[in-house]
């Protein structure tokens, strides 16, 4: 089986579903603990961002996460029906001119995603956000 799909509610208590799914695919697909952790970190950032900023109502929404095994890595497709993404630039975060004490922490999440994943793409289709992450594992 080269694909695992989970469907979670827009609630942070659902984050453990992601780690459980990753544990599952790590065993099946022989992912290293490090690769699994990197994917988990990137997903936690993306999903919490969707949960906290993606929806204007108080309704329940579903977020779909597909893990697909490919020849040299894992593709992860996240689909939600929230507001369109506004992916901020992470470059400012690592600005060496800023001292540690004044460094803004807000960009850390997106910096993680960009650093830990090898590729990333985004499209808006049929009122849905489709974010694709790719982690090379060889």
């Amino acid at each position: 089986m080269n694909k695992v799909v989970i469907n979670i509610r827009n609630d942070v208590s659902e984050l453990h579903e992601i780690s459980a799914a990753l544990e599952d695919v790590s065993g099946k697909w022989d992912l290293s603990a490090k690769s699994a952790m990197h994917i988990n970190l990137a997903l936690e950032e993306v999903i919490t961002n969707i949960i906290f900023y993606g929806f204007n109502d108080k309704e329940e929404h579903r977020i779909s996460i597909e893990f697909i095994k490919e020849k040299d890595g894992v593709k992860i497709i996240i689909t939600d029906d929230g507001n369109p993404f506004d992916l901020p630039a992470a470059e400012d975060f690592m600005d060496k001119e800023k001292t540690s004490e004044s460094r803004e922490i807000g960009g850390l999440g997106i910096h993680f995603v960009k650093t830990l994943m090898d590729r990333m793409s985004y499209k808006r289709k049929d009122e849905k956000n489709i974010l694709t992450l790719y982690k090379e594992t060889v």
Partner: protein
Amino acid sequence: MNITKEKKDDINVLKIEGRLDTTNYSDLEDLLVRLTENNEINILLDLSALEYISSSGLRILLKYLKVIKAAEGRFMLCAMTTDIREIFEISGFVNIFEIFEDQATALKS
């Protein structure tokens, strides 16, 4: 996540086991609030059994580093695994925190 607290001399050693993430960072924050409010401002985090830390966890560490520094205390980290250290490197936090090999080295410093 499980946190155990032990006092060694005037330093509170907190050993964090498991995962520190968006779902549970407030448990660590609650403990750090209690300690700093009681003027327990010398804290060493033993991260030898920490398996995962997300940006929510890192934010709490940075927040309390600032609180403790302002109170002229010390907030130290020790014994992180290679994978956890890599996350600290990516976040730039290795240059911000005092990080030691193990508890003994930190306590002697």
